[in-house]
C-alpha cells in the first residue's frame, strides 16, 4: 500500500523514518524558527513504501529535473576586448580545451567560467544535480572573480528562490545545493534586483537553516555549521554597508558575539564612516585583549589599525612612520608595503612611493631606498618575496604613472606586460584593462 508522506508530530517516532537525515520538525520548531521550505513540505503525490532497512539512498525518489538551468541562452559569451594583449598573447594562456580542474587550480578564472558554462549546457544530465550545482558555482564565482558581476547576477536569476522544495531531496529534505552556492546566490540575487533587504532576509533564512543543522549535528560537523552561522552574521554587516546603511552596519556588528575579528571589522567600519575617535576606541579595546587572535607570522591587527587611524587623522607623517615600522618588521607583507607607498605620496615622496610599488610588482628587494627599478623588471625575487598584482597595487601604480608622465599609457601597458610575464597562480593571473586604468 503506498504510504503518503506528511510532515507533522507523527514523524517524531516513526520507525520507518531515517533518523539522522530527517529532522523531527516539532523539536526544531521549539529551538529555531523553521524556514519556509521546511514548513511547506507536502509533496502532492504518494510515494512507494521504503524497505525497512531505512536506507534513504535506496528509497525510490522521483528524479529531479534541473534542465531549466541548462539552457545555453542563459550563459553569456565572455569577450576579451577588455583584456590587455599582454595576457591574451602570453605563453601562459592555456588552450581553451584545458580540463576545468586544471583551469581552476591555476587561476585561469575567465576560461574556467567559459568551460563551466560549456559543460553545463552540453555534457551534464538534467538529473545530475551534484554536477550541475558544482559547475554552476564555478561559473558564477569565476564571473565574479573576473569582474563580470553583472553577468553573474543575470545568470543567477533562473535559480529563483532557493528555498523552494525542488531544491530539497524528496525524502531526506536535505538541501541539494551546496552551501557556498546558496550563500553566493543571496548576494547575486540582491544585486540583481537592487534589493538589499531581500538579500539580508536571504542571509537570515540561511542562518535559520544553519542553526537547526548545527543543533542536529555533532562534533566537527557542528563546528562547520556554527562557523557558517558566524560567517552569515558578518555577511549581513557587509550587505548593510553595500546598501549604504553604515550606521546600521555598525549597530549590527556590535550586536554579534564578541570576537576580536568583529572588533577589528568594526574599527574598519568606523574609519570608513569617518568617526576616527570611535575607531580609536575599538583599537584600544583590541589592544587590551591578548594577541592570541592574530595570524602568525604577521603584523598585529591592532598595529595595522593604529596605522590606518593615523592615516585617517590626516597625519601622514606619523602614518608613514607607523607603516614603515611595520614594513621593516614584516618586509614580505604586501599590504603593509602598499599602504606605506600610498602614504609616501601624501608626504611628498613620490619617487619612493613609486619604487615601493614597483618592487611589489617584481617581487624584488627592498623598494624603500628610492632606487628606480622599473627597467630591471625581471629582477629575481629576493628573500622569498613574491611578485604581486592585486587590484589596489596595479591601480595605485597606474595612478602614479598618470601623475609622472605624459606617456603614462606606455608605462601602464608595460606594467600589464610585467604582470602577464609572471607565472599563473591559484589566486589568479589574468587581469582586465581596468586594473591598469587602460
Amino acid at each position, binding site marked *: 500500500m503506498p504510504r503518503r508522506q506528511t510532515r507533522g508530530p507523527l514523524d517524531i517516532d516513526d520507525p520507518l523514518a531515517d533518523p539522522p537525515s530527517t529532522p523531527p520538525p516539532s523539536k526544531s520548531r521549539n529551538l529555531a524558527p523553521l524556514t519556509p521550505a521546511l514548513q511547506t513540505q507536502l509533496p502532492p503525490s504518494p510515494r512507494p513504501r521504503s524497505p525497512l532497512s531505512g536506507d534513504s539512498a535506496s528509497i525510490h525518489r522521483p528524479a529531479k529535473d534541473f534542465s531549466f538551468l541548462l539552457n545555453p541562452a542563459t550563459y553569456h559569451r565572455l569577450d576579451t576586448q577588455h583584456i590587455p594583449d599582454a595576457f591574451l598573447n602570453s605563453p601562459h594562456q592555456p588552450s581553451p580545451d584545458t580540463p576545468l580542474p586544471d583551469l*581552476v587550480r591555476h*587561476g585561469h*578564472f575567465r576560461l574556467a567560467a567559459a568551460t563551466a558554462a560549456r559543460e553545463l549546457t552540453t555534457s551534464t544530465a538534467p538529473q545530475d544535480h551534484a554536477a550541475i550545482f*558544482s559547475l554552476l*558555482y564555478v561559473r558564477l*564565482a569565476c564571473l*565574479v*572573480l573576473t569582474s563580470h558581476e553583472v553577468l553573474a547576477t543575470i545568470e543567477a536569476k533562473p535559480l529563483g528562490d532557493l528555498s523552494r522544495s525542488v531544491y530539497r531531496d524528496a525524502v531526506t529534505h536535505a538541501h541539494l545545493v*551546496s552551501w*557556498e552556492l546558496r550563500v*553566493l546566490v543571496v548576494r547575486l540575487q540582491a544585486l540583481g534586483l537592487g534589493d538589499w533587504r531581500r538579500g539580508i532576509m536571504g542571509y537570515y533564512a540561511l542562518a535559520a537553516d544553519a542553526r537547526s543543522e548545527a543543533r542536529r549535528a555533532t562534533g566537527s560537523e557542528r563546528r*562547520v555549521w556554527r*562557523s557558517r552561522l558566524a*560567517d552569515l552574521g*558578518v555577511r549581513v554587516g*557587509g550587505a548593510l*554597508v553595500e546598501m549604504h546603511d*553604515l*550606521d546600521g552596519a*555598525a549597530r549590527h556588528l556590535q550586536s554579534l558575539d564578541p570576537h576580536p*575579528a568583529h572588533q577589528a571589522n568594526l574599527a*574598519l567600519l568606523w*574609519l*570608513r*564612516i*569617518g*568617526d*576616527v*575617535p*570611535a575607531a580609536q576606541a575599538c583599537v584600544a579595546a583590541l589592544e587590551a585583549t591578548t594577541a592570541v587572535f592574530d595570524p602568525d607570522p*604577521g603584523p598585529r591587527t591592532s598595529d*595595522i*589599525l593604529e596605522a*590606518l587611524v593615523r*592615516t*585617517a*587623522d*590626516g597625519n601622514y607623517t606619523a602614518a608613514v612612520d607607523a607603516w614603515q615600522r611595520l614594513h621593516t618588521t614584516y618586509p614580505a*607583507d604586501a*599590504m603593509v608595503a*602598499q*599602504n606605506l607607498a*600610498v*602614504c609616501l*605620496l*601624501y608626504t611628498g615622496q*613620490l*619617487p619612493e612611493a613609486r619604487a615601493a610599488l614597483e618592487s611589489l610588482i617584481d617581487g624584488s628587494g627592498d623598494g624603500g631606498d628610492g632606487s628606480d627599478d622599473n627597467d630591471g623588471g625581471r629582477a629575481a625575487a629576493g628573500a622569498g618575496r613574491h611578485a604581486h598584482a*592585486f587590484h*589596489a597595487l596595479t*591601480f*595605485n601604480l597606474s*595612478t602614479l604613472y598618470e*601623475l*609622472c*608622465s*605624459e606617456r603614462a599609457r606606455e608605462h601602464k601597458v608595460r606594467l600589464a606586460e610585467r604582470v602577464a610575464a609572471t607565472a599563473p*597562480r*591559484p589566486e*589568479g593571473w589574468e587581469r582586465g584593462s581596468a586594473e591598469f586604468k587602460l
Partner: protein
Amino acid sequence: MSRQRGQSTSEGLKGPHTVSLKVLRLSRPSLADHHPLPQQTSSNGLHISPKASLSFPSADPTDSFILSPVLTLPPAFGSAYVGETFSCTLCANNELPENDEARRISAVRIAAEMQMPSQPAGLALDLAGASSSDVNENATAKPGGSLQKIVRFELKEEGNHVLAVTVTYTETLLAGEGRAASGRVRTFRKLYQFVAQPLMAVRTKVEELPARGAAPPQYALEAQLENLGESAVSLQAVTVNTKPNYTALSLNWDLDLSGDKQTHSPVLKPRDIAQVAFLVQNVGGAEAPEDATTASKPGDRRVALGQLNIEWRSAMGDYGSLATGWLSSKAR
C-alpha cells in the same frame, strides 16, 4: 568636477614644452572593498583558491567582511565642500626622452594660486614638498624625473574656485660633450576649475524660555543640520561659543559622557537631518549689552547668544568645520 583649461604662453613656435604638469586630488585614500567567496567544502576537484577573492595576499580567507585595510588612491576628483581642506599634489615632470643628448632641463619651479569668489585675482599658495632642497634640484634633472608639491587650502566660500598653477623651467641646448650652447627660461600656466559646494545646511531657531521669577533669562537655541552632500558624514561635535557672561549647555548626544558605554557620533546619511539644542543662560551679573550690529531699529533689544560650531568627518576621517554668525534672541 575639475575642468582643466590649458593655456600656453606665446611660445607656440618654439616647440612643445618638455616639462609637463599633472595634478591628483589628494582627498583621503579609501579602504578597498572586497567580496570574499564563501568557503568551499564540497570536494569535487573544483576548488577555487580562497585567496582569489581577497583584496590582498595576506588577508584572512575566513573573514568575509566587505572592508579591507588596503588603501586606494582617489579614483576621481570628487566633490569639494565648504569647510573642508582641499588638497592636491602637483607634479612637474621631465618629459625628455631617455636618450636625448641634446637637451637638459633644470631649475624647475612650481607656483600656485587660488582664485575664489572673494578674491578673483588669486591668493598665492604655500606649497609643501619634500624637505631637502637637494631633492628639489635633482628631482627633475634626469628624464622621467618629477618634482612633487602639495597644495592644502581651506575652502571657506561657496562657488567657483580656480587653482592656477605656473611652471617655470630652464631648457638648455647642449652642443656636444655636455657643453651648454644656449638656454632659455620657459613657463606655462594651467588652470583647474572646481566648485565648492555647501555640505551642511543649518537652520536655527532661538526662543526665550518662560521666565522663572527673578532668575536671569534662559534661551533655547535649536538648530537643524542637514547633510547636503553625496555621502555619509560623522557629526563629531556641535558646540556653541558664547559671550563671556553666557554659558551654553548641550542637550545632545554628548550630554552625559559618564559610564563606559561606548558611544559614537551620529552618522548623517545624505539628506539626513540632525536636530540639536542648547540651553543658553546668563551667568554673569550684568545684562549683555545691546548688540548694535543686530539691532534693526533703535530700542530693539536683541541679545547675541552664541555662534554655532559644527565639526564633522567624512569617509576615512576627512575633517571639516563650519561656524555660523552670531545667533541672537528675537527682538522684543
